[in-house]
């Protein structure tokens, strides 16, 4: 009785071990890449129950491709976290790159520039995204970090006022007034003066900002500091600041660009700063702005390109471009960066990372995807420098790219 049971148990154990090891022997997956990607536009209606507006049509673009990003045992997995400013673009790029090269899988988890910087310094991710610049102290602590600019984007003031369906115009004074708390209500004369045709309701302004450490906040507050001495001396610029509206009870914090955009959408009377892609793709109204040259501009690729035209990149490949004097420039624009290590221990990861960044910066398909999401490419003058730095990435001392 005892021996029979022992035999059975040992057979079971052997069987379990065999089945556990078998998948490793299996062939991983088919890696057929469909050359021609057919884009089907499917109209799908999303019914939101219980609300007066019954049907909402959402356009769905179906890309048929058989290569799905799957993290199989011998695929190379690149993990990243960081800025939500470029997140729609990085997710798009990661997906497209995995279709081109199914052996690599890129997971960009977002979380804000602050999280990206923390994670890359702690070594828990392979690369990070950040619109906030690393400080001197960070470089001293971790000299092996390198910032690589990828694209430039526009920060817009998105708003949600019931009854206002027009695009409003704001100027620097109005934005500073709203965020410092001096302009309290949408029917303030300062706003009416800028928007003669718009009927604003008597509604307190709910000012949305970021609740996490954010490069988008950094870009926005750099702008506020550039146009207002009071703001510069007061809350100042940074990835997180003391928002005056919070003390007045009219502030609201959202996590990440999506959180801010969602808060604006869900709150009547809200205004907040977010990257253009979030406002545009979710049909949230965003304001035109009067720039430093006095011209009213709309956030778009041409105005972003005009803003970054005269960008001066320093030795660390970083540049600040808010409140450009160019007449066509969008006043609140900023570059976004990838933070990488100068040297990697895992050669396969380093190789795939370098190939990904090179593809993202130079490949026509990558640039066109960026343009579709309204991110502007780097100026031509700085591109060679950036590519040079990317190709200098080494793995255990040996350069990854051998030219």
């Amino acid at each position, binding site marked *: 009785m005892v021996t029979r049971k022992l035999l059975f148990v040992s057979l079971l154990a052997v069987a379990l071990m065999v089945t556990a090891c078998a998948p490793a022997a299996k062939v991983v997956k088919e890696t057929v890449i469909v050359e021609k990607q057919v884009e089907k536009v*499917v109209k799908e209606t*999303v*019914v*939101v*129950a*219980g609300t007066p507006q019954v049907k*909402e049509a*959402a356009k*769905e*673009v*179906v*890309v048929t491709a058989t290569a*799905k*990003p*799957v*993290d199989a*045992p011998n695929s190379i*997995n690149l*993990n990243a*976290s960081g800025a939500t400013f470029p997140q*729609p673009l990085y*997710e*798009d790029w*990661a*997906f497209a790159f995995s279709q081109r090269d199914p052996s690599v*899988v*890129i*997971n*960009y*988890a977002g979380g804000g520039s602050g999280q990206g910087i923390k994670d890359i310094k*702690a*070594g*828990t*991710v392979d690369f990070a995204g950040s619109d906030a610049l690393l400080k001197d102290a960070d470089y001293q602590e971790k000299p092996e970090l390198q910032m690589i600019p990828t694209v430039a984007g526009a920060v817009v003031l998105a708003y949600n006022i019931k009854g206002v369906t027009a695009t409003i115009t704001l100027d620097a004074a109005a934005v500073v007034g709203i965020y410092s708390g001096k302009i309290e209500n949408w029917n303030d004369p300062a706003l009416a003066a800028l928007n003669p045709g718009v009927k604003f309701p008597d509604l307190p302004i709910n000012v949305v900002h970021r609740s996490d450490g954010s490069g988008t906040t950094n870009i926005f507050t750099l702008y506020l500091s550039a146009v207002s001495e009071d703001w510069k001396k007061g809350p100042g610029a940074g990835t997180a600041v003391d928002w005056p509206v919070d003390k007045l009870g009219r502030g609201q914090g*959202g*996590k*990440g660009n*999506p*959180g801010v*955009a*969602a808060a*604006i*959408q869900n709150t009547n009377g809200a205004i907040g700063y977010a990257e253009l892609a*979030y406002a545009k*793709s*979710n049909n*949230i109204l965003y304001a035109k702005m009067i720039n430093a040259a006095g011209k009213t501009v709309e956030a778009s690729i041409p105005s972003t390109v005009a803003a970054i035209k005269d960008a001066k990149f320093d030795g660390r490949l970083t540049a600040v471009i808010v409140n450009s004097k160019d007449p066509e420039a969008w006043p609140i624009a900023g570059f976004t960066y990838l933070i990488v290590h100068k040297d990697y221990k895992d050669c396969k990861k380093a190789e795939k990372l370098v190939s990904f960044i090179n593809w993202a910066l130079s490949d026509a398909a990558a640039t066109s995807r960026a343009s*579709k*999401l309204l991110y502007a490419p780097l100026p031509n003058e700085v591109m060679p420098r950036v590519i040079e730095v990317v190709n200098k990435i080494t793995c255990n001392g040996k350069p990854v790219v051998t030219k």
Partner: protein
Amino acid sequence: MHQRVRRSSNIFMLGLTGLTTVVGIAPLVWILFDVFVRGASAISIRFLTDTFKPTSLGGGGIWHALVGTGILMGLASLFSVPLGILTALYVARNPNTLLGLAVRFGTDVLSGLPSIVVGLFVYALVVSGHGYSALAGGVALAILMLPIIVRTTEEMLKLVPKSLREASLALGAPEWKTSLQVWLPAAMTGILTGLMLAVARVAGETSPLIFTALGSNVLSTALDKPIASLPLVLFKYAVDPSKVRNAQAWAIALIIVALVLLLNISARLIATWRSKMMY
């Protein structure tokens, strides 16, 4: 007169308790209604079998999250069940020792611990050295499941009549054999219901996973890399401006709630069936 006042206030207050019960259950009905109606309209086979796609490409599906949740549940059960059963065996055998009381105290404390604190603990223990991983997520969820498993297993073990254990011991079986081959199997259905309730508890846990499993947009079965999970994806999609993502969030809510309801109702049914069987 006084009698009338007493009688009518009696009926009034008793009626009030009934009314309160209706009011108290109303949110449940409301939530379930919303979850089912809004979730059902966004669920499709493609949604369940597709992995993440950016919204610019339609939004994709949640297969990666379903797989991820399954793996995390499996890991959490793997870590918590053996430990929980062994601990419960100790407490059931030695209820009045110092260690037994300490364990009872420990499970009470652990069950009341905010799950975010558990996440911090596992971050310090596991993630600091080895990065975000499915294993870390599994450990965090296991810590949350442990008190439930210990408590229910202990109660189920106590319900088994002592005569059964005594008979086995009288026949010469050693203690460990009695416990593992006689006592435990007799309580097995109860222990399984405890496991189901514990899984139902952690199926929707988000905060401990934020800094352990991190979340992923990619289908992954690796244990040492970040992994997706249904509640994490739900959180991300709910706090998102895109209407497509919001609809997907409701669908995920439906799946999680259906899973939790199924587990809870099954556990209840098994308990009633078992108690009917015993008498």
